[in-house]
């Protein structure tokens, strides 16, 4: 979860969206053309059109995990469905690995999905008449891979998502968490480069959700795919994200690293949205440390500058002297006192967050 966005911004983006619009309604295309790209949702609504995505432009880089957040109906799923071309965007351009997917024909599109894309759904969307193994092997079989080879690969996937022993179960015989493991395994079976997850854990209860997030992080650590991940849950976003996009009424209000979103909200809406977020879960030591003063009496403890505060807070609080902050090379770049950490945890308008995190 290091900030890959910064390190890899020089490489070509895997996904690039240029002013993407998705408007539902019979007359959507004409209305969009007439509007010169300035779409007022209320006006469109009067004309019987619903704005799903409004002027979305962004890039996602290889190995990056972009989280899309927003309230229900803000257009998260619609954006995802535009990029996977499950629905045709009304306007704008979408490039996958530099190729314009809106101009692809059916054949190219199928080829793209068969080789590069995998998707996980909130409602699992497993095939009820197929067993766990058959569900996972399905994308391989439609590709025309022999039964033997696809079943072999599916078995590996079963092991990967820890469902060994349940290969012959039907989806109805599995718990929600297990079903979503099947969904995950299915989406990974063809070894996609791009992985779409639309609220994959929202239908699960909190304990299972935590477990699945760990599982997800483990998988991502091993596979490092380019990921678009939709969620409602800020905690989830903070645990997983490289960058977060916050949507409202189809508009991407802000797209930035978790820390920047919390510290420098671009709009009033984002500020409200992030108000309740416990800062120690977002902020890195770097962003709150004091400059290093060589004359100071330092504790022996050293913390890396890009550690999240929450993870090191306890040890800092326990030390009576200021703690040294070091960079990747081990050189000291700053210091941090217990009182400063207390201030972050309980001070200011983030006062509530302290209670929440306890």
């Amino acid at each position: 979860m290091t900030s890959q966005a910064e390190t890899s911004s020089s490489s070509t983006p895997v996904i690039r969206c240029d002013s993407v619009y998705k408007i539902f309604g019979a007359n959507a295309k004409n209305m969009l053309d007439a509007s010169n790209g300035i779409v007022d949702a209320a006006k469109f609504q009067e004309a019987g059109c619903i704005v799903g995505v409004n002027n979305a432009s962004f890039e996602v880089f290889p190995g990056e995990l972009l989280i899309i957040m927003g309230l229900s109906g803000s257009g998260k799923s619609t954006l995802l469905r535009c990029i996977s071309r499950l629905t045709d965007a009304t306007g704008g351009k979408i490039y996958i690995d530099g190729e314009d997917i809106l101009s692809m024909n059916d054949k190219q599109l199928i080829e793209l999905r068969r080789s590069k894309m995998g998707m996980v759904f909130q409602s699992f969307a497993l095939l009820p008449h197929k067993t766990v193994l058959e569900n996972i092997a399905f994308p391989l079989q439609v590709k025309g891979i022999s039964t033997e080879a696809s079943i072999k690969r599916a078995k590996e996937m079963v092991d990967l998502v820890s469902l060994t022993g349940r290969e012959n179960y039907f989806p109805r015989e599995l718990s929600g968490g297990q079903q979503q493991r099947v969904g995950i395994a299915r989406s990974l079976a063809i070894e996609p480069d791009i992985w779409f997850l639309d609220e994959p854990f929202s239908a699960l209860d909190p304990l299972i959700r935590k477990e699945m997030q760990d599982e997800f992080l483990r998988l991502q650590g091993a596979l490092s795919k380019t990921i678009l991940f939709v969620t409602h849950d800020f905690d989830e976003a903070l645990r997983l994200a490289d960058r977060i996009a916050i949507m409202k009424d189809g508009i991407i209000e802000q797209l930035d690293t978790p820390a920047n979103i919390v510290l420098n909200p671009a709009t009033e809406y984002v500020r409200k949205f992030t108000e309740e977020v416990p800062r120690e879960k977002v902020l890195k030591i770097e962003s709150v440390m004091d400059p290093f003063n060589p004359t100071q009496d330092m504790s022996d403890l050293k913390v890396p500058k890009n550690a999240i505060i929450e993870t090191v807070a306890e040890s800092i609080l326990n030390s009576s002297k200021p703690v040294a902050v070091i960079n990747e090379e081990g050189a000291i770049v700053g210091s941090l006192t217990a009182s400063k950490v207390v201030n972050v945890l309980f001070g200011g308008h983030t006062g509530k967050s302290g209670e929440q995190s306890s």
Partner: protein
Amino acid sequence: MITTIKERKYLQFLLLLVVFYLLCLIVPPSDSNILWRFPPLLKQLPIIINDSVNYLLFDWWLIDVWDPDIEEFEQKPLVNLITRAFSGVILFMIEFIREIMLGGVKTIVTFSGWEWATANPWARWPALPWTVVAGGATIIGYALKGPRLALFVFFTFAYIALFGQWEPSMETLSFVLIAAPVSVLLGLALGVWAFRSRRVETIMNPLLNVAQIVPHFSYLIPVMIFFGIGDHAGAIATVIFATPPMVRLTLLGLKKLPPEVAEAGLMSGCNNRQLLLKVLIPTARRDILIGVNQVIMQCLAMVVIASLIGAKGLGNNLLIALNGLRIGLALELGVCIVLIAIMLDRLSLAWANKQTDYFADLSFVQRNKFSLIFGVVFVAGIILAYIGSFFFKDGFNYLYLIPHNKGITTQDFWQSGVDWIWDTFFYSLKGFNEWLIIDVLVPVKTAYLGMPVIATFTLVMGVGFIVGGTRVALSVGGFLLFIALTEWWDRALITAYLVSLAVVISSIIGIVAGTLCAQHPVTTRFILTVCDTFQTFPSFIYLIPVMMLFGVTDTSVLIAIVVYTTVPATRYTVEGLISVPAALHDAGSMSGVNRIQRYFSIELPMSFPHLALGVNQTVVFALSMVIIGALIGTDDLGQLILGSLSDRQGVGNGLILGLCVAFIGLAIDQIIRTWANQRKQALGLD
């Protein structure tokens, strides 16, 4: 005053009734009075239909065809050529399956011509010994599901063989084995088409509505004209009748799917065909399988009716037995049909749910064990049949083919049972019968016939207006107007009388029985199972026992309809009551109502929409049964439809009569459905 009437529906109904009675009293019965009966303006319609059909069939679009017999080109009408070719294909398929089981020469004739076949008498397809067919079917049952299904299949075939119904049963089976898959595939294709295109759906929906209520007989006449008489004609009529429910359930199932299922398929890289065949249809298979089940039931229900236009087999024999009042035989044949129906249903279900095991690392013998066992059964059956030919010298080899009606039979037992009942209860049965006819049926019938047409219109359209406003009133009035303008208004009234009596009685029985059974989970499950079982019986089966008791009278028909239609009434009642949320029960109990109050104040109103749909089904079932009642003689529309069957010029009559019946059903359907939907919305159930 006027505002109170506007608010209170029951006052409106009361007012309507008063007007209705006044009209009945005022309008004098006279044929010249337009308020008493409308003039039959549509009288010419059947003739026009006849003429256009004849034109279509014999004069439209003539094309030149090479006739090898006279070695010349001949002009033949296109439609006729197409229908003949179509008939030929269907007939060939039916005969092919039939000859595998019963032997024969027609398949060979198709490929070699009659001359060669007659010259070479050895070139006959031999029948499979019945032991092989039964054994093979049992193995299929075992392979698909397991020992229990195998046992049932074996029992079915054993029953058929033992009771000497082998030949007609195989004839029926071969007919169903063609008609059912064709209906399923056709229904599936049309359903998918409607799913893909909104326009097709809007066109198809009203057609399906009509198709499901138009009585079976009405199809027979056009089919007969276009395709001639025989097994193929029966099969085609069956397909026409069995396809609509399949279309409807396919469409329903596909539309119910959450969009994510299709998206998951697309993201898995499916192309259109894979998406349809591997994702959408299998995922919607619950509803689609109900459709398959319906198709099989319809096919077997049509067995008897198809025999009217020349389908061979059990249906034909059953019809003859019923006409000859040979109750025992009819019963045995009926059981054959029911057993075949259930067997096919279970087998198709098991086939659809079959799964493969990828783990087993099987040897050749294990993998092909069922084929191998069948091979053994095949050889053993033939050897047995060969041995049998030494045993049974009198020409019937019981180990090869059991000749028709030479098996065991329980006819005498049933006949003596019927005789005993007649002897013992003669006076009470006769008394009941006479009482019902003289004191109930005849007066009601007279009352119906004594309604001036204007009064009927006022009543029905008034109800439509109160329930659903001008739109419903107009559409209901339109349906009635069509009937009133044909020459069969009186017959329609008789149909309406039988149907409404039956619907009232069976709704009462169904609602009471359903309510009682819904009180406890055990009885609930019991009654639902009973309903399931009864629904698998083809409708005419119900005629057998009542005819046993009451002979050929309106009483028999009425009772048969009542028995048949009580099933949906009961089922919908139970389902409606158990769908009332338990929280409401508790809320009711907490506010101190007793059980009976709770039933009337909470459960009944909450389940009213369901009940209304049940009554609606009852009407549809009753209408289809009335027509079947015509088989044993009533003087309503059904009888006329039956009559037009034997008339070359019957197409027009048959169609118009069929539409009349359908329109009665549609009018009632419209009113009840609107009402139920309103209640649903009022109760927030939608």
